[in-house]
């Protein structure tokens, strides 16, 4: 084996060890990490609750919470589901946009808008503990 070949072989081994994460520890998290992530999530839930109860999503002063106190009657555990009025299977965020456009007379959010994520985070939090029931009407 030439010097050059052995160098290349050595580098390849080192690279493969690096790629397989040798010497590093995968996602070994601490209680402090969990607390931080929960805090991050709750801050988005809070943002969602603020949007839910504020008139800023629409143009006529109406807020989501006017018809859906505590996000009740939104049934996030049933989505995606067939929405008979639209004639297809939709995600919860599409129904949220429908509400923003109709009763709130507003403009729909982009489906990955961080406000949309916040609204979904809030709706899910209010529905915590309920078993998934995809497709249920």
């Amino acid at each position, binding site marked *: 084996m030439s010097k050059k070949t052995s160098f290349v072989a050595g580098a390849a081994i080192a690279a493969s060890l690096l790629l397989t994460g040798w010497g590093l520890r995968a996602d070994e998290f601490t209680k402090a990490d969990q607390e931080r992530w929960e805090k991050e999530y709750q801050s988005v839930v809070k943002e969602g609750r603020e949007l839910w109860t504020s008139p800023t999503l629409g143009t006529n002063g109406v807020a989501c*919470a006017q018809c859906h106190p505590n996000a009740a009657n939104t049934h996030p555990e049933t989505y995606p589901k067939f929405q008979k009025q639209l004639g297809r299977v939709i995600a919860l965020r599409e129904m949220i946009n429908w509400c923003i456009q109709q009763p709130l007379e507003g403009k729909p959010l982009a489906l990955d808008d961080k406000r949309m994520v916040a609204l979904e985070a809030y709706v899910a939090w209010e529905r915590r503990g309920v078993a998934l029931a995809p497709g249920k009407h």
Partner: protein
Amino acid sequence: MTAPNRRDFLKGAGTLAAASALPLSLVELAFADAAQNFTFAYISDAHIQHIGGTKFVRNWDRGLIRAVAETNLLTPKPDFVMFGGDLAQLGTKEELDHGAEMLAKLNFKTHCVMGEHDYYLDLGEYWSKLFGPQWYSFDHKGVHFVVLNSVLTYDDWTFKRWPTAEQRMLEMAGLDNPNGSPFMVGEKQREWLKKDLEKVDKNTPLLVFSHSPLQKIYKGWNFWTEDADEVQALLKPFAKANVVYGHVHQIQYNQIGNISFNSVMATAWPWPYPQSYAQAEQHLPKLTVPMNRADPFFERDATGWQFIDVNTGRVAMKFNLYNNTNRTVAFNPATGRPEDVQFQDPARQIPPQAHY
């Protein structure tokens, strides 16, 4: 024979439209003295909401306009109309004036009940200018009627907690707002009620109108009156005591001892039943067969107004439900409680009545 003129034609068309939309044939007269028979209409929770300038939320306007128009078409004519509170959304002059203008189109004497959305901006001052006292009683054809302001709360909350009247109104307007405060009739009004009822024969049918339920259902959304037990104690001596309340935007009914409870629908929008809030501990009366789950694609679905007859001294509540099958909840003398005439038997209940 002359050809029908345009006015006659329109009159006929109007009657036809009314006959097809309203369950008018359901009215049964039961008193021996026919002159004493009467009915009245009940409209509630219009939540007229001001956007700015001359603009109001169209959806809520339409609900009240429709209820008023249909009530005016009733045959036989109701003796009077009750408006059950929450005429406004945030208690402003603009909202109360706009609502009062719509109610003024009713062809009948109208009595009003105070709602929290009417009250907490100026503590009912402007409302009282438009509609009169916040609690009162009247007698009509052998029935004693009482109207209460049941949306008062602790003085600390009302007078000390909020820097501005506007903020106080906003805090109370959020149904699920944890900064809210429980509704109550209060000692002063209970004293008045006690005195008012003293002079009434205990066999006289009694109808009490309040905005909040005079029973405890779910505190988190103020489907609740803090001193409900004390008020019920005052109604207990009456053989035929009935309470009719708004606020809940849904069909509820219950029987506690000799007191029958009936809620009325909103003209603005429906509210979820408390059991559909997964984190709630609540006590929806077991007797209640819920209204159908709302179809949001029909904006008037799960809203409506009521046509009530009290010919038995008890309430027979006929719900005119826009975009849905009408329902009747009437006192059943055989069982001694209000029952839905069609759906009370669990075997006859339908999937849309399941709320989760």
